[in-house]
């Protein structure tokens, strides 16, 4: 079999060197990687949104809300109510509540305030 050579003797050899196809198995592996990367990007995207949301204002808001609620309950309910006047069923609950809340609100001993 003979074939006419173009001006550049090398070009037919080079042309022969370009004949290599991508095996299906490799193509499948590469596309599986692409799919996995997309899935990871989507997942990490949601994580980033949640993290930014939490860092931005949600966490301080929740913390502030919890703090305000505890302080409100303490100042409005626990402090005015003498332990002796509280119903029996509330007694131990108030004791626990006071133990937890008093240091947070900044009062070590309610008796210091004259109650």
């Amino acid at each position, binding site marked *: 079999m003979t074939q006419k050579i173009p001006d550049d003797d090398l070009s037919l050899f080079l042309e022969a060197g370009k004949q290599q196809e991508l095996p299906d198995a*490799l193509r499948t592996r590469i596309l599986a990687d692409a*799919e996995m990367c997309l899935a990871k990007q989507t997942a990490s995207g949601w994580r980033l949104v949640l993290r930014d949301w939490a860092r931005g204002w949600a966490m301080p808001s929740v913390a502030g809300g919890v703090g305000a609620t505890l302080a409100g309950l303490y100042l409005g309910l626990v402090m005015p109510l003498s332990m002796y006047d509280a119903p029996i069923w509330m007694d131990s609950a108030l004791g626990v509540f006071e133990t937890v809340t008093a240091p947070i609100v900044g009062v070590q001993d309610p008796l210091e305030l004259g109650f």
Partner: protein
Amino acid sequence: MLSEQDEADLLARFAQGDLHAAQALTDLLAPRLLRFATRMLGDRSEAEDVTQDTMLRLWRMAPDWEAGQAKPSTWAFRVARNLCTDRLRRRKPMVPEMPDLPDDAAGADARMMQTARAQALDAALAQLPDRQREAVILRHIEGLSNPEIAAILMVGVEAVESLTARGKRKLTALLSGRKEELGYDAEDT
């Protein structure tokens, strides 16, 4: 061959979740990377690993790709080259494997001839110094421009011109004795 903008658009579409863009990029880049890596490493299975690894890095980098950077194909060739260099450093050079040829060639004779020519080319390429081989493959087989090759090899454009010219001369000399044997009739030139 796609322009820089087209390639970057495909990459951007992939980053936004378009799997068709990944398929298009794979069909565009992976066969070229595989050819390049096969000729650099002389080992088909290692070349497939390098191709897959390079494409994986491209997928991971896609969300951070900025317009105006190098062409994605140039970036991919540079990564593939570095991966090949790492692997070559870890082992002794091997006799190059011949790449597979498409099965739908005209006939068995044509296929065998094409195979023999590709084999001759690979054997000749293996005799070139590394830099010349890289430059010749990228310029004359993969069709990259000199500035693109310069970016991949991290040398100046003049150096690329010199490397390709010297490599091509040497390759021509190596293959000239095999023209008739491989079906190229010198009398017809």
